[in-house]
């Protein structure tokens, strides 16, 4: 795979091309081998240094990287088979959300997730991973099906946000997101949600209520996109990096706020550098957590799921004596 480098990855790109040149040499001498070894080491070190110090805005770039694995990539790499189920039986079959039966080794599950699309054609069909109401209705219907037949549910979140358009509003974008959260909070089967790239606001949360919520290390999960926030606060998208700093939406931040249970480590230099490695890590995370959740009685599971979201938020409760009636 040819690598598209992000601007802050220039030192990595330079070292890589230097390395590529050396490894192409036809004659291998001990000196050359040593040189290659040292260069490899330097490449690893440089990549680590850059990725250990990513700014929130750089993390957004990684989360949006066009070589980053998408839902369909994980469907192929993590699961033994995938039997797609289409359509919401009311309006259509939104390609921005995919759903179907799958096997995680022997375990039968329902998997769903946003799909952005790799090339321009697929991206256009999928509205760049921005789902319409029919998408949210489709996955809800299939999740109910899964619950009915005792299949656990795995969701992959990767969307800039729910689609903002005339049709989406006409068909109840706000209502379907509300209803999905409402229903997911009570579905009597284990649910694991993983933010694999972009966790864009309500569009993400519409498939984001579960017993475990995890984020890949370089994904982000935010109330508003950095561009949207910048547009509102500073009247220009140019301030997106600044907004990214303000919004505290990295996996580390969210773990700190108690919003996500786990951060799943990415391979050195991000998931886009090594799809197989990322898929293997994700797979073992899913297996481990599913195994745990499947031992929990459903009533306990639902009570814990409720309490998990119930605890979210930070506020101050003044002692009654300190309260004065405002006039």
């Amino acid at each position: 795979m040819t690598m598209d480098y992000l601007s802050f990855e220039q030192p990595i790109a330079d070292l890589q091309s230097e390395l590529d040149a050396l490894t192409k040499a036809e004659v291998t001498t001990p000196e050359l081998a040593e040189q290659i070894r040292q260069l490899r080491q330097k490449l690893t070190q440089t990549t680590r240094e850059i990725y250990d110090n990513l700014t929130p805005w750089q993390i957004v770039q990684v989360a949006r990287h066009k070589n980053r694995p998408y839902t369909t990539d994980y469907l192929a790499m993590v699961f033994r088979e995938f039997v797609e189920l289409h359509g919401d039986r009311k309006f259509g079959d939104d390609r921005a959300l995919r759903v179907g039966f799958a096997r995680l080794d022997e375990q039968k599950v329902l998997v769903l997730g946003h799909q952005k699309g790799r090339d321009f054609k697929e991206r256009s069909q999928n509205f760049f991973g921005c789902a319409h109401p029919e998408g949210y209705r489709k996955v809800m219907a299939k999740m109910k099906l899964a619950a009915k037949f005792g299949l656990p549910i795995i969701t992959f979140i990767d969307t800039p946000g729910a689609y903002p358009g005339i049709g989406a509003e006409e068909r109840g974008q706000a209502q379907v997101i509300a209803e999905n959260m409402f229903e997911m909070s009570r579905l009597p089967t284990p649910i694991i949600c993983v933010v694999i790239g972009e966790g864009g606001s309500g569009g993400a949360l519409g498939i984001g209520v579960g017993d475990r919520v995890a984020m890949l290390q370089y994904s982000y999960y935010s109330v508003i996109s950095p561009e949207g926030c910048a547009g509102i606060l500073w009247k220009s998208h140019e301030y997106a990096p600044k907004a990214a700093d303000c919004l505290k939406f990295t996996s580390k931040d969210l773990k700190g706020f108690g919003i996500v249970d786990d951060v799943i480590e990415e391979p050195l230099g991000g998931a886009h550098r090594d799809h197989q490695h990322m898929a293997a890590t994700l797979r073992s995370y899913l297996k481990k957590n599913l195994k745990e959740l499947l031992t929990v009685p459903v009533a306990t599971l639902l009570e814990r799921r409720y309490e998990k979201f119930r605890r979210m938020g930070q506020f101050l409760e003044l002692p009654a004596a300190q309260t004065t009636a405002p006039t």
Partner: protein
Amino acid sequence: MDQTPTTTSEINTNNSTRKKRGVPEGTWIQCPSCKKTVFRKEVEKRLNVCTECGFHLYVSAKQRISQVLDEGTFEEWDADLVSVDPLGFSDSRSYKERLVAEQKKTGLKDAVVTGSGMIRARRVAIGVTDSGFIMGSMGSVVGEKLTRLVEKATERNLPLIIISGSGGGARMHEGILSLMQMAKVSAALAKFHEANGLFISVLTNPTMGGVAASFASLGDVILAEPRALIGFAGPRTIKATIRIELPDEFQTSEFLLKHGFIDRIVHRERLKSEIATVIDYCGK
């Protein structure tokens, strides 16, 4: 907040310090919709509805409560919750300063007032968001107060009324914590639903974003005031995405009624009696 104003004129005296929103001071006011100059007292007499075009102007949470509940029956719950600044958020001013300024402006601690009272002698649990406080946006306090309201309504088997007015949706100053309030309140409503609770959601101008995409859309019965702006994405965002002119009436109450997402459009003067009627029919 424990002092519940009982008449509209009394409320508007309280309100006269407001700058950005609401009915401005003076004998005459300009309707934001038809732009006609109308006699302020007449507008107030009609519960802040324009006498020329019938546009439903802003009312504060406190005014709303006095319009909907039987006089002197409101008991406020969880009045002592205040927002903190979990992100250390700052744009042109810090979130902390903004909170203080909004508290001064509105006389509220945050964007929602919750409690219990009577509607035509029926006890209800009621929450009202105030779009004058950081655009009625939902942060941790709004989410927590509404969740407690829903939980109390469940415990006490009370009909639940939430009157929404929010141009802001989830409050970005509290980041992801605001977003999660949508899930928190929705989960509480799901439990309330399982306990056969009656939830009447009333949408007022404006009900947008994360508020529309959570509790406001989850009513057993959804009522809306006429010509309110209601939707998920802001009209500006939609315009910027699809680059075509938006149709007339787009994202209004009438638009939502036509597309099947609300049960009834109710004039403000009839809101109280319509709520009472729904409670009557649903046997609570």
